[in-house]
C-alpha cells in the first residue's frame, strides 16, 4: 500500500495542536513511518508545498487574507481536510469578540499605525472551505489524533463523541461543580472527548472543545445565571472558544 501523503499546516494559532502531534512521543516514529509527511513547516525544512496531499491537517483560524489564501490552496491540493483543534473547528479564542470592531482592537494593541495590517475578523475553516473532519480541542487530544490517523490509514473517518463533557465526567464519578458548587461549568454544552479533564481536577470546564451539536445553550445559560452569574458574563464565558449564535442566547 502506498503511504498516504500528509500535510500538517498551521494558520494563525498557538501551534498547540501541532505540538500535540510532536507530543505523541511513544508513537511518533511509527507515525512518521506509516505516513508520508510532505509538508510540516513546524518540524521540517524539507517541505513540498505544491503536490497533492491525501490528508491535510490544518491548525489555527483564519485571521488574515494570507491565512485565507493558504487555506484555499491547501483545500485545492488535498483530498481530506481535517480541521485540527478548536481554532480550526470553531474559530477558537481569536473569535471571542469577533463581533467587535477590528480596527479598534488593532489600535488598542498596536497603537495608531501608519501602515496596513493584513487582518480580518477570525473565522473557522468551515466558514471558508469545506472541511471533511473536525477534531476539536484546545489543544486536540492525543488519543483522538492517533485514532484519526489509524482510521484514515484504514480508509475510514474516526468516530468521535458528540455528547457533552458531563457524560464523561459522570463516567469518572466526579462531584458536580455546577450542581454542588454552583460554578459555571460548561460541561453540559461542551463536546466530550477530553475525559472531562478539568472537572476531574475540580476545575469547571471552560468549553475548550467547543459545543456539541445538540448543545442547549439557552437552557444552560439560564441555569448558570440562576446561580448568580450575570447573564452577560455567562454569554462571554460561552463565547470564549466558539461563537454563540445570537439565536441561542437567552
Amino acid at each position, binding site marked *: 500500500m502506498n503511504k498516504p501523503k500528509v500535510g500538517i499546516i*498551521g*494558520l*494563525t*494559532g*498557538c*501551534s*498547540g495542536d*501541532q*505540538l*500535540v502531534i*510532536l*507530543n505523541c*512521543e*511513544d508513537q*511518533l*516514529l511509527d507515525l*512518521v513511518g506509516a505516513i508520508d*509527511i510532505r509538508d*510540516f*513547516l*513546524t*518540524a*521540517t*525544512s*524539507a*517541505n513540498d508545498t505544491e503536490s497533492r496531499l491525501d490528508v491535510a491537517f490544518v491548525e489555527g483560524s483564519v*485571521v*488574515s487574507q*494570507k*491565512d485565507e489564501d493558504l487555506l484555499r490552496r491547501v483545500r485545492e491540493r488535498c483530498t481530506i481536510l481535517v480541521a485540527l483543534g478548536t481554532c480550526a473547528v470553531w474559530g*477558537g*479564542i*481569536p473569535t*471571542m*469578540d469577533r463581533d467587535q470592531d477590528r480596527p479598534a*482592537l*488593532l489600535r*488598542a*494593541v*498596536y*497603537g495608531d*499605525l501608519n*501602515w496596513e*495590517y*493584513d*487582518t480580518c475578523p*477570525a473565522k473557522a475553516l468551515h466558514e471558508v472551505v469545506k472541511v471533511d473532519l473536525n477534531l476539536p480541542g*484546545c*489543544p486536540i487530544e492525543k488519543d483522538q489524533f492517533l485514532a484519526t490517523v489509524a482510521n484514515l490509514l484504514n480508509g475510514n473517518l474516526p468516530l468521535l463523541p458528540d455528547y457533552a463533557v458531563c457524560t464523561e465526567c459522570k463516567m469518572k464519578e466526579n462531584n458536580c461543580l455546577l450542581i454542588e458548587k454552583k460554578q459555571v461549568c460548561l460541561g453540559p454544552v461542551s463536546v466530550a472527548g477530553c475525559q472531562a*479533564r*478539568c472537572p*476531574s*481536577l*475540580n*476545575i469547571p470546564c*471552560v468549553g*475548550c472543545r467547543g459545543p456539541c451539536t445538540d448543545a442547549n445553550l439557552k437552557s444552560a445559560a439560564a441555569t448558570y445565571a440562576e446561580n448568580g452569574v450575570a447573564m452577560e458574563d455567562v454569554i*462571554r*464565558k460561552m463565547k*470564549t472558544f466558539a461563537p454563540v449564535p445570537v439565536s441561542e442566547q437567552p
Partner: protein
Amino acid sequence: MTQTIKIDHLARVEGHGGITVNLEGNAVKEVRFDIYEGARLIEALVVGRSWEDVPQIVSRICAICSAAHNLTAIKAIEDAFGVQVTPQTRALRDLLYRGESIESHALHVFLLAAPDYLGYPSAIALAADKPEAVKLGLRLKKLGNTIQEVIGGRAVHPVNSVVGGFGATPTFEQLFALRRDLQQGLSDCEAMVEVLATLPPADFCHTPTVFAALDTAGDYGYYEGNTLRLTTGKSLAASKYRKLTNEMAVPHSHAKHSHYDHKPFMVGSLARVMLFGEKLTEKAQAAARKLGLTLPSDNPMDNNKAQAVELLFDVEYALETVEGMLREKVKPETPVEIKPKAGTGTAATEAPRGTLFHSYTFDKQGKVTAADVITPTAQNLACCEYHFRAAVDQDPEKNPAVLAKHLEMIARAYDPCISCSVHLVVSR
C-alpha cells in the same frame, strides 16, 4: 552590486517568520526578521473578562510556553490582589515550570536544532540514521510532558493551575511514578551530554551582547523573584519592565522590538546561565564544560548548549523536589480564596525562551481593564537582527546559500516562538 538573501519561511520554529538581508557590495544595508503570524489581539480580548478567565485565555498565546503564560498571568493576578499561596503550591508551580522547560528544551535541542548540525532537514530524517539519538530526545521531551500532565493536568495549556493554587493536588502514586521517570531522565541527560558533545561546532558570529534575566532569588529557577538583572550590571524592578522592553512597532512585523539603553539585549537560557550560572549544580557545570560552553559568551549559538545544561539541571532539581514531596507527603489542598480588588499586578518569570512579562489592571469586581504581555521572543527580535548583521558582516565570503543557512541556524538558536511574539502592549 546589491544582493538579497531571503528565507521566506523559517522552518522548525513555532509560528510563521522569515529573514531578509539586503547587501550592497560587502556592506549590509538592511537586516529584517519578518514576522508574518496573523494578529490575534489576545490582550484586547481579555479586557472585560473576569480575573478567573485570564490564565486560561492567555495560555493560548503560545502552546510551547503555555504553562509559562498561564503561570505568569496567575502570578500577576496574585500580585494585583495581594494573594499569598502555600509553600506546597509554590513548589508545585516550580515543578510545572521545570516540566515545561524540560519539554521545550528537549524539543528544541533534539527535534529542531540538532538536524542542522548534522545536515538533516528534520528530526524525522535524522531518525532514519540515528534513531537512538532521536529516541533519547523524545524520551526527555516526554518526561517534561509527564511532569506537566501530572502537575498541570495537561501537557499543553495546563488546566490544573489556577489563581490561588491548584484544582487538585497530585497523588502519592502519581509522584511516585514521576520519581521513577525522573531517575530514568537523569541517566538520559547524561547520555544527552555525550551525544551533544560530539556535534560539530557552529560559530557564525562573535559579538558583545547584553543579556538580561530575572533574578529568581534563591535557587536557579524560573518562577519566583521580582528583580531583573543585566550583564551590564544594572538591575530593575519587574514592575518597571517597560523601561527594559521599551517596545516600538516596526513595519515589517506584527511584533515590536525591544532595546535597553539603545542596545538590543538577549534573554533566554544563555542569558540565565550567563547571569546565574554559578547557582547550577556541579553536574550541570561539568556538562557545560563538556559541551564547550565557556562564559562569558558572545556567540548566540551557545544558547543551544545553555538549553542542554538547563535541561540536565531541571531534571536533577525536579527529582529532588519530587523526592522531597514524597518524603514530606503532599497534602490535598484547595486554592486559597480570592478577593478581587481594583489595581494593577505585574509579574515577570523566566519562560524557557527568556523573561516573560504579564501585567493586568482590574476594576473592583476583578474585571480586566487593561492587559499587557511581553514575550521573550519579542524582546529578542532586535537582538536577533543584531546577530544576523554581525554574522553577515563577519563572513568573509558572503555566499548567499551558506549565509542563509547560517542565519537560519542563528534564528533557530534563539528558539523563537513567533506565535508568542505577536501579543503586545495595550495602550490605554
